[in-house]
């Protein structure tokens, strides 16, 4: 499979933008880029990865650093890493990339945006509420130019993009005040090439929702991309990860990571019934730990742990917690007689702590 990619991560916007600085968007973009460059991951060759973060990452992983040594052009221009990319630059590059990738026979195009975002509230009820990523030239008094629109980009990809396109928007979907104009459609107008078979969009939050950075008390990563890259590396069934599985995983895992705040992600495929296999190959691992505390249970008692694959193990009560590297999925904790005491989802990327009461 031949894959290309475009990745943007912006932590710092212009002071006049009135936006809080982010802490995790650059790390999110670099982490995703590292997965893309991995042969067991996205399988993107370094010369086909367009990565632009602002500011530059302090110490990118070797594979990413190598790719940044000779970055490809963005719509014919060399990227200026001393500033954040502008909306027009991103839109033009997506347009050129889509057409070039289709003509070159590329199988898949990956796109990720990590940073601030908003959602338009269109006048036309038939148009979906559209998530827009805010590029580096965002200004509240002249918004249009800085918007990278999700739905318009999806339509463009469906018209003349490569065979499969998978886009992720890790940004908020707080609603734009309704009297603002719609984002530009952008893109040259050509008739459909019928090359594209599917375009998927992964959205970090529900309409009107916030995409949080975690951990909440000292954020350093976007919750969505953190789980996205973890899921891409570790969620499998028979060594396959589909878009549906990834969405189900993200929807189970994200609320636990952002609790007590609520964040509801989604992955929407166009067309809906396309069977998109994102990864085929073993999980990277290692599994995160399941920490099971039975100290409150009666001495001599036992607990049966039921794994996602239905296998079981019996643990005796002890003062110290059990630390078990465990595959991802739902778990049940029962008495030997079969009474279910607790169910818990072990979704990573950190340890899951389970405390069973007396």
């Amino acid at each position: 499979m031949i894959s290309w990619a475009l990745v943007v991560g912006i932590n710092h916007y212009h002071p006049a933008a009135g936006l809080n600085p982010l802490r995790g968007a650059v790390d999110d973009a670099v982490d995703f880029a590292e997965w893309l460059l991995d042969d067991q991951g996205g399988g993107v060759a370094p010369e086909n990865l367009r990565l632009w973060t602002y500011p530059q990452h302090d110490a990118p992983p070797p594979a990413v650093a190598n790719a940044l040594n000779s970055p490809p052009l963005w719509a014919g221009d060399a990227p200026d890493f001393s500033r954040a990319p502008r909306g027009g630059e991103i839109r033009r590059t997506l347009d050129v990339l889509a057409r070039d990738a289709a003509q070159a026979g590329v199988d898949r195009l990956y796109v990720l945006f990590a940073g601030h975002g908003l959602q338009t509230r269109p006048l036309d009820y038939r148009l979906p509420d559209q998530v827009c990523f805010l590029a580096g030239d965002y200004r509240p008094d002249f918004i249009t130019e800085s918007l990278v629109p999700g739905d318009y980009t999806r339509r463009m990809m469906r018209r003349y993009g490569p065979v499969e396109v998978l886009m992720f928007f890790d940004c908020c979907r707080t609603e734009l005040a309704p009297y603002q104009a719609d984002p530009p459609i952008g893109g040259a107008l050509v008739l459909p090439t019928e090359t594209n078979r599917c375009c998927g969009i992964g959205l970090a939050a529900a309409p009107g929702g916030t995409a949080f950075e975690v951990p909440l008390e000292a954020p350093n990563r976007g919750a969505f991309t953190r789980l996205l890259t973890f899921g891409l590396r570790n969620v499998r069934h028979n060594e396959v990860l589909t878009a549906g599985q990834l969405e189900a995983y993200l929807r189970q895992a994200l609320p636990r990571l952002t609790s007590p705040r609520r964040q509801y992600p989604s992955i929407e495929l166009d067309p809906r019934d396309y069977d998109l296999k994102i990864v085929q190959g073993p999980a990277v691992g290692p599994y995160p730990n399941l920490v099971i505390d039975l100290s409150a249970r009666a001495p001599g008692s036992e607990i049966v742990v039921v794994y996602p694959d239905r296998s079981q193990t019996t643990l005796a009560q002890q003062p110290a917690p059990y630390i078990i590297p465990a595959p991802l999925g739902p778990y049940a904790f029962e008495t030997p007689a079969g009474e279910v005491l607790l169910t818990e989802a072990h979704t990573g990327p950190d340890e899951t702590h389970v405390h069973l009461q007396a």
Partner: protein
Amino acid sequence: MSISKPDRTSPPSVESRLIVRAPSGVMIEVFDAAFLPVESGVGLGELDLALPDGLYTIRFTAAGQSQEQIVRLLPIAKPLVINGGDFALQSASPSTTPDVSPHERGQAAAVAGLSALSGRGEHAQEIVIFVRAPDLRTRADVSRSLRLVDLDGAPMRSRDEEALSAAALAQGYAARRYSVPAGIFGLRFDTFTRRRVQQTVYAWPRRRTFAFVEYGSIPVNERHGERFRRVRRRGIDPARTVLISTRSDQSAPTQEALRVADILLHAVRNVGDFLDPVIVDQAQQSGCPFLALYAAAAIASRMELSMASAEVRWPNASRLRKDWEAKTAEDLLANLPRGSWPDGLCLEWRLSTLSESKSSSKGALVAPPLLDCAWRWASARSVSFADAMAPSSAFYGAARAREPAGPWLVWRTAQALTSKGPDPIGPDGLDKAIEAVTDRLGLSGIKADKNELQPEYQLITDSISAKLSPAARLTANAVQTLAMSGSATGPIDPAALAGFMGLPAAELSSQLSATFAELSGDEAPLSEES
């Protein structure tokens, strides 16, 4: 602490039974432990599945909200029964589901308490407006700007104002009661974007209309010198309003009726989302004309998409679907009270267009309708029937000053009151105006057999887009979207453009003329001779 790797056993798989139940309008999805979908359904009432014992995740979804739970299916004969889907929907109507706050539960009790107020007014109809504040801290009079007006714009006088005010403010809500004749009224208020707006509300014969209005907030950027600061503005969020009715001799609407209203309004606003036929049946049997309208509008909107071969989720797909849709929509409309209800008329027009029936109802709207989609259908109608709308300021306001508040039609009153409408224009004039703009955008002459980028088709580049006014950009985007949709071989249908933009014929012509002038870079508007 040390890492453990305890031995695991794998008992033989035993087929067990999982029964999942949910109310109408709730989609049930079951996932296995590998995050793979097992089964899903809506409108079934329950899913009864034979599955290997193990762990599963069940997701309940309604009106865009979801709830999940993990279940352990034991290897025993007794089926595991899971009931779910009883959670609060994002709505202005107060809920009593287990997950709501005590504050909201108190407001639900307050709604029920309204009916305890004694005495009937002069008329057999009543409009009750319930403005809900998000929390007890919002103690300001949230209904300060609220007004109910008649068709002429004259404000109506509310009843029991003092009694309602004292009790209401203590609980963080405001309420007004109006005794009114049956007919069409306007609700005026200030939104959280500091716009004074109006929307239509009906007083059905011998019924009590409840309007639940949400006092919300939205983040906006405020300029401070050269910088901007994000602040939250509070006010009424027009998109969250819920309208429902009960018989005049009945108390407040039931929680179930409010739930049905929430789900149907979500279905009207989100046309690509699933629509449960059971919810439509409930709307039909409820006797509430609002619910009947919402269900008919939700169906008609989906019929449009079917006609355009768009993909819509329909879990109970059958070859009878289209017949069911058309007949059900007509039955719902037939149950509306007699009278010239704008939404009913708009729906009849749309259904006759979709069925290509020549026997469409004549008549004209006496006021803008409730629903935004109905307004679009009326706008499309106005291309061939110039008298479909009366040339009044309310129609002009709805045409030129709409606020995005789907599914409702909401417009700014200031522009409606001070502006004069453009001169009427015939269909031929519209064709020419559309052709001129299409040509200026470089879209003319696109043929189906051309699949290469032609320089003259390069349009709406960022530089052009940045120079257009917001209204011109919307017009250009609409023309482009319609020109490139479907086979894109013929001229754009003026009715389709009018409906797409929600602009009646005269307004559409005016807007096309202004857009042509901007694209041409001069002040000269499009003339009949262009």
